[in-house]
């Protein structure tokens, strides 16, 4: 009975009803979408680097080390002596080690000098290796490996020749041509935007630069590649332990390393700390989407109020036929319940379609999880509570007007 009347009444005002449903749906898409993306983004962010027990650099701040060595933002770190690296990597507890040198750039992209071990040991999202779209790990002395964004943006293909520049300056190593030896698959990590070269090659081309001036050493690229050049300094290193139970011991050992001021950073800890710094951003997003929902409720209310005058007559008719005040009240509550229910269903469908077509590099879920369902139930409750306002108004009208509406 209530349902039939509500249904017919809604059918009569399709447009207004659909607009209300749509505005609720939009707010559902925003609220759930942001929540879902933030959640996925968070877990992905916290897994930017995984399975690496320790990142070592020369700085006092763990976040600074993380920013410089993994995210490639920040002002740079003090150098670490290569000899220290060699010594640490020979610690009994260490299973593997990868040296990293940062600070160069190529056409706006950061260059990381390392060795082939980087692609064997660097993992993200709980154990995924960086995979190659084309080509493979360093083979040739002059090989560079490009992150997917670098290759795409600069239009570089496998085998293309590139000239790297020195530091962050405009000095290009014109005489030394590098070749694209590999292009990485998209990992949605900072590696997508990096250029990788071998540490020894980086050291070699830097030999020709002294105090900021180019010194022609009259050596062919071929000869240079066969010279056994060892870097003197690097920016830091990634370490894997044989037994991760020993992490605190090793951390302590590195932090008190006699030669230099080193700091061992446990990635998961530092990432969590870094994420906390950014989480207010997430709160702002959630706040905004919450406001959008409030806006949708007001849209619904205003559309219900705008038809209330017209409804006064209907209320009088129903009252004269013996409809109780309760029924009149339920008619209104029912209508807004349907608007919100419709909005929630439509919003979820919209969101799934959006997630499907947006084709995120992150795996964003199609279905709401428990927390989101709780959110939806709360939205529903708020909407039904809000519908009480026009329902109370209609109740007042029905008492005041009785059978005769003076409109």
């Amino acid at each position, binding site marked *: 009975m209530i349902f039939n*009347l509500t249904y017919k009444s809604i059918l009569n005002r399709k447009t207004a009803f659909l607009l209300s449903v749509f505005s609720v749906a939009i707010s559902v898409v925003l609220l759930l979408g942001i929540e879902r993306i933030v959640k996925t983004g968070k877990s992905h962010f916290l897994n930017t680097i995984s399975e690496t027990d320790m990142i070592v650099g020369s700085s006092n701040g763990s976040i600074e080390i993380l920013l410089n060595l993994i995210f490639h933002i920040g002002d740079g770190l003090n150098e670490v002596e290569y000899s220290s690296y060699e010594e640490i990597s020979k610690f009994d507890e260490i299973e593997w080690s990868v040296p990293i040198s940062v600070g160069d750039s190529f056409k706006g992209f950061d260059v990381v000098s390392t060795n082939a071990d980087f692609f064997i040991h660097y993992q993200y999202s709980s154990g995924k290796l960086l995979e190659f779209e084309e080509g493979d790990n360093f083979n040739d002395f002059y090989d560079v490996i490009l992150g997917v964004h670098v290759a795409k943006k600069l239009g570089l293909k496998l085998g293309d020749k590139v000239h790297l520049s020195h530091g962050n300056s405009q000095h290009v190593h014109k005489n030394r041509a590098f070749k694209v030896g590999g292009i990485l698959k998209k990992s949605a990590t900072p590696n997508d935007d990096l250029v990788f070269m071998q540490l020894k090659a980086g050291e070699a081309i830097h030999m020709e630069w002294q105090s900021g001036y180019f010194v022609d050493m009259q050596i062919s690229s071929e000869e240079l590649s066969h010279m056994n050049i060892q870097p003197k300094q690097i920016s830091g290193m990634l370490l894997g332990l044989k037994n991760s139970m020993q992490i605190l011991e090793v951390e302590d050992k590195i932090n008190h390393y006699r030669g230099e001021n080193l700091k061992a950073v446990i990635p998961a800890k530092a990432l969590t700390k870094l994420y906390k710094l950014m989480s207010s951003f997430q709160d702002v997003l959630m706040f905004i989407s919450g406001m959008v929902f409030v806006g949708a409720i007001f849209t619904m209310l205003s559309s219900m109020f705008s038809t209330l005058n017209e409804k006064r007559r209907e209320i009088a008719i129903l009252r004269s*036929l013996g*409809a*109780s005040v309760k029924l009149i009240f339920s008619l209104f509550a029912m209508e807004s319940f349907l608007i919100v229910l419709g909005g929630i269903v439509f919003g979820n469908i919209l969101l799934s379609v959006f997630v499907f077509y947006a084709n995120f590099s992150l795996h964003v879920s199609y279905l709401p999880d428990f927390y989101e369902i709780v959110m939806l139930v709360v939205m529903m409750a708020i909407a039904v509570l809000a519908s009480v306002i026009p329902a109370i108004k209609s109740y007042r009208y029905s008492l005041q007007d009785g059978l005769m509406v003076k409109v």
Partner: protein
Amino acid sequence: MINISACQFKYDKEIIIDINSLKIKEGEHLFLHGKSGSGKSTFLNLLCGILEPTTGEIEILGTKLGSLSNSVKDRFRADNYGTIFQQFNLLPYLNVEENISLACKFSEVKTSHVKNMKEEIESLLDALELSVDLSTPAMNLSVGEQQRVAVARALIGKPKIIIADEPTSALDSDTKESFMKLLFKQVESQNSTLIFVSHDKSLSSNFNTVYDFSDINKTQI
């Protein structure tokens, strides 16, 4: 069957209705003449149990309205009344059939008086000389047609009391006459009591009782 005694209704401390005594017999056709603003609408609301008198008692069909709870009163109204307003009688989004049968949705008594809903509606509309498709939405009907559908809804289920509040005011004089004729015929065939309120005295000729509302209502407004 309707017995009103010493009934007063106050709104904001102002007495709007003050009726010493009014008795209406079963099957009576009462014409109540009154100007607008004379408290007619309030009186009808009291009669239907939508408003409660401040003092006094309204007894209808042997039931004291004041003794009923709100929901029982609603049910009482659904069972025993048929109402026609001056206009906007129908829910615009329901069709003719749905509008008429709506009266029975709230009342088992009315429903029990109807054997076959569709046939009953058709014969009522026939008697009211209205030939429209039952599935026509109410909003597509002319005012005259709407008023007849409203009469059919008031009559269906044979309620004991029919209340008509200026039902002809939206009609032109030709339709007015035929409307009155048809209304009377149906009310008589069902033996319902008719309470007809209007400011138009020319309509009163067929009624067996004619009251001036200002004679009944002692309040001077």
